[in-house]
Every structure is written in C-alpha cells, then in structure tokens.
C-alpha cells in the first residue's frame, strides 16, 4: 500500500515537472485592489493587472483564463495548481522567492502613509506610539510595518485593501500604509477621501519592497517564466504597455 502511494506521488511529480506546450495559462488575479484589479458590478475582474495579463498572453500566443483569488491564498493556490501564474501586483521579495519564482518586474511603485488631514502624527517610533495602522495582511507593507514599527503601533490586518479603507473612514484607524497608487486611486480620490492625505516620505527599501512587482510562477515552470519575460520585453518595446498604462495613470509606473 505504502509503495503504491509513493509511486503515485512520484509519478504525479514527474508528470508535471516535464515541460509541456503552454496552450492555456490560468492566471490568478485579485479583484479588490483598484485600479490594478477591481470587481465590476457584474462580477467581472478588471484593471491594470488584468489588461497587462491579457496583453502578455496575446504576445505569448496563448489562451488566458483569469482565476479570481483572495490575496491571502494567492501563493498557496499557485502551489496547489489552481492556476499557473499570479498577476496581482505582487512584490518580488526574498521571502516569497523561497516558495515561487518571479519574472522580471512589470512595474515598481513605492508605499506611503495616509492620515486624516492635519492629524498630529510624526513618522518615528515615538511619533507613532499607540497609533492604529491598517494594512493588507501579508503584503510588503505589512512586513515592513511589523519589522520597523511593530513595537510602537497597533497593526490591524485586513484581507483586502478595501476593508482597510472602510475602517479608516469609520475612524478605527489613525493611519493606512500601502502602495501609493491604490491608496490614491482607490481611496483618496474616491468619495469621502478628500478628508485624508498622504504624509511622510515614500518608502521603497529594497529589503522589504524588493525589486518591484513581478509575475509569480511555480519553480518547476522555468519555461513559462521565460515566456513571460520575453512577453514583458515585447509589450514594453512595441508600445502596448504604454497604451495600457495611459488608461490608468498619468505618469510612468514602470520605474527605472
């Protein structure tokens, strides 16, 4: 019995490790991180990440299937083969690299604090003492906040960025920490967001925020990683990337 089980395991591993022709690529997307991904009233997931995913698939000449997945379960779902790649504004970090492979970056933006306009807060371990800060669970912002200010502040962790916005508006949070673009487009520019403001410097320490945002792939699928890297270069070169970017932003989010 044991032998049979082992054989099944070995067979399953070897079968998937073998290179295969990529005809359909299933892509994990989030759907609660505007403007990179958001869910429309009809339940469709749209946004920058999704447009980029579609452009990449077109360039790779494969069929794409978007699979919505909560942020928490992104990497576990990739590892358990619910999809083959994650295009969900995921930062390339050393920690994640232990579990998955990343392509080259497809954009790179810093994070920043948001406070209520005029609130009396200073960004230092003393100035933040006793403040309540909201972040999305297991993001680079979460890691940074836990490591750097974990002793001083109370951290509230949310499943989605949207829930953190709700609690900021309800007055349960003193600060938000997150990527500047979702904070600006998903919160500050939305209804009721004009009572809040960015404050402090932009933060992008390599140690926590890595090399930018990349596409996560299972370590066994080196071929898929190469395909994606080629496709990223191609849409950068042929102007597709700029065309998509202009739909959402008035500046270059690719970074240096």
């Amino acid at each position, binding site marked *: 019995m044991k032998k049979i089980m*082992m054989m099944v395991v070995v067979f399953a591993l070897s079968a998937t490790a073998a290179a295969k022709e990529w005809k359909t690529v299933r892509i994990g997307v989030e759907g609660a991180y505007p403007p990179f991904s958001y869910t429309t009233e009809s339940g469709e997931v749209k946004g920058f990440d999704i447009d980029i995913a579609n452009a990449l698939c077109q360039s790779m000449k494969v069929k794409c299937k978007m699979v919505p997945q909560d942020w*928490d379960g992104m990497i*576990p779902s990739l590892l358990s083969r619910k999809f083959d790649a994650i295009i969900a504004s995921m930062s390339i970090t050393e920690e994640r690299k232990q*579990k998955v492979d990343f392509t080259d970056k497809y954009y790179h933006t810093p994070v920043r604090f948001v406070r209520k306009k005029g609130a009396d807060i200073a960004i230092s371990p003393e100035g933040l003492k006793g403040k309540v800060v909201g972040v999305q669970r*297991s993001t680079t912002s979460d890691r940074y906040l836990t490591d750097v200010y974990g002793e001083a502040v109370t951290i*509230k962790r949310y499943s989605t960025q949207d829930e953190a916005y709700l609690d900021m*508006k*309800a*007055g*349960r949070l003193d600060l938000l920490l997150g990527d500047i673009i979702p904070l600006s487009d998903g919160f500050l520019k939305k209804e009721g967001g004009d009572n809040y403001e960015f404050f402090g410097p932009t933060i992008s320490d390599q140690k926590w925020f890595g090399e930018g945002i990349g596409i996560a792939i299972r370590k066994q699928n080196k071929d898929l990683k190469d395909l994606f890297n080629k496709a990223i270069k191609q849409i950068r070169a042929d102007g597709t990337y700029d065309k998509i970017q202009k739909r959402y932003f008035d500046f270059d989010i690719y970074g240096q």
Partner: protein
Amino acid sequence: MDFKEVILQYVDYKVILDNLPMYFDGLVMTVQLVFISLVIGLCMAVPLAVLRLSKNRWVAWPVWLYTYFFRGTPLLVQLFLIYYGMGQFIDLNASSIGAFFKDAYYCALVAFTLNTAAYTTEIIRGAMKETPRGEIEAAKAYGMSYFQTFYRIILPSAFRRALPAYCNEVVFMLHGSAIAGVVTIMDITGVARVVYSRFYTPFEAFIFAGLLYMMLTFLIVWAFKQLEHRWLAHLRPRS
C-alpha cells in the same frame, strides 16, 4: 522511506512550533470572547424566556421578533452589521458609545452575546414550557407564590431539561466565534490566517487551529457530561 518520513517531508511542523506563543494568545482571546458572551447571553436569556412565554401579546411578540431575527440570520452578517454598520451612523471618535463600537473586540462581543442570547432564550423557553403540570399544581397546593414557584420549581427543572441542548449551543458558539478574525480580532482562526499567509502553509496553520478548537470542544462536552451526571441523576436508569 516509511510513511512517517513522507509526512514529515511535506508537513512543516516547525511553523507551528515557532508560532506557539501567537496561537496561545489566540486561544485566550477565543475562550475569553466565547465565555463572556455566553455568560451575559445566559443572564439575558432567562428573563427573555419568561417574557416570551407571557400571555400578553405585546410582551411576548417583541421577544419573538428578536429571537426570530437573530436565529434567522447568519452570525457573520450580524457581526458585519455591528462592526461596519455602526460606523456609518455614529461618529466612532466623538462619543463614548462610539468609542465602544470602535473596538473590534466589543463589536464581536455584542454580536456574539445577542446571538447566543436569542438561541438560549428559545432553549429555556422550550424547557420551561415542558414543566410537568403536576409539579406546578403541587407547588400551588403548598401555598407557594408565583415567584416562589418560579425560583424553586420551574427554573431548576427547566435548567436541568435544557442542559443537553445548551451544551450544543455552547459548542456552536465556540465554532461560530471563528468569524471574529474577519474583523481584525486575533482569535485562533485569526492567528491561523496570519500564519498561513505569512509562511504559505495552509495545511499546518489550519490543522493546528482545528486541533485547538477540538480540544476546547471536548473540554466543554466533558464538563457538561459531569453536570448532567450530577443534575440529571434522577433520570438515569437504576443500576
């Protein structure tokens, strides 16, 4: 390679060992939340059950509505209503009632208490209704007043009859409390979700949370067994 080695190769038990203190905090949080809401809920349920049994429609009907609402909607919806809904109507930073609802812990406590009070009301009501007529008649014959009858006869025998059903309610409440993590509370499930998303180990994180809940459940069931043994002794077959 035997089966144990295969398991150890795939199960990352070190993640659990490293995070034991966090799990312990979560355990304390869960037990505290559930225990406090059960105690307050039970204290509310007894008078509510009496009102619910009242022959006066205007007294019985509001209690019926209350239990109907809280038994008819999911606990998660009730928690969302209180946690996110309150913020819409009252300024959480302006008043003392706002300060109360600002804290996720109190929001969960209110939701859990109202929920368990509704179920317990119905359990006790049912048990009171089943009081044998003879016992009440006997009490009357002894010249007991209404309140004496209530405290000496109806309530003790109703509690006895309600015990098995109430044990279920306590276990359900414990399991229902797993949703506290949704509103940023670090209960057992909340801790498991942090461990899961930080180390990408869903199986380990949740199987350990499951074991903790199971341990608590066994403790509860065991405790109620002892109570039943003591208080329902008269119902046991003679041996």
